[in-house]
């Protein structure tokens, strides 16, 4: 099992690829990379919360039941990347902008939750 630092490193690594990838040529891959960055962000978050999971379904279940605010941003990334990966949806470069925006919202939400947790621990 990877540590939270390793998940954070992998999330940053995925972001690096997103930054250099030609999104005009590979918008489908851009959405997939964005989703897997989201997975690593959530996994790193779970290390802090003490949650653990070994599958997409288990991860989704934990997010839905315990962290619905995170799920609200994670779900669109999960669904859209499924369409790109398995349903061969013709992803357009415009779509990537929406996906990146959603990823940024997810990142902010996770940061907010982490602050809440730290605040609760401190008080």
């Amino acid at each position, binding site marked *: 099992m990877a540590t939270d630092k390793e998940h954070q490193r992998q999330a940053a690594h995925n972001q690096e690829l997103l930054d250099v990838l030609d999104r005009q040529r590979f918008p489908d891959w851009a959405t997939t990379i964005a989703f897997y960055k989201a997975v690593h962000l959530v996994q790193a978050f779970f290390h802090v919360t003490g949650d653990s999971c070994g599958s997409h*379904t288990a991860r*989704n279940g934990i997010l*839905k039941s315990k962290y619905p605010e995170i*799920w*609200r941003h994670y*779900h669109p990334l999960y669904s859209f990347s499924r369409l790109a990966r398995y349903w061969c*949806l013709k992803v357009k470069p415009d779509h990537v902008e929406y996906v990146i925006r959603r990823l940024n919202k997810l990142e902010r939400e996770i940061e907010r939750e982490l602050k809440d947790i730290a605040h609760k621990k401190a008080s």
Partner: protein
Amino acid sequence: MANRIRQKPIELHFESTEQVLVVPDDKDRFVTTMGEAARACQQAENSREWDQQWKDMLYHVHEWCKAHEDSVAEGYVCVGDSAINIIVCVRGEDYDFSFEDELSEFDLELAQKFPLCKTEVMQIPNQRDMKAGLSSRSMKVYGDGQRASATSRP
């Protein structure tokens, strides 16, 4: 009658290894442990509960699609590898990003109302390629088609 002692229910403890004799209607009797019998009872109870949630969930998906008919053209339910997929086909040929938030709320709502069903909501654009094969491997619960009207509250 007044002296009749009310019988206590038989207790089946999960941890018990005491033997019980099960006598089915066809008299094909068998012996098992009390713990196994307790687990079988719980499974039967869960199965009844699951069955009810499944039927209610189908109806709920149909009603939700109907309530969002401006955006939703068709609704499908199919069994995926690890969850029940609720596939919402939107009216437009493009993926509708403005509809994502509502779908995520719907997904959360289904998880809360029908926890045993383990559903996952996803959107597909209204494209022939996307819908190809859906009718053979899923149940259409909303939209034009013969099966749409078959979904009625039990």
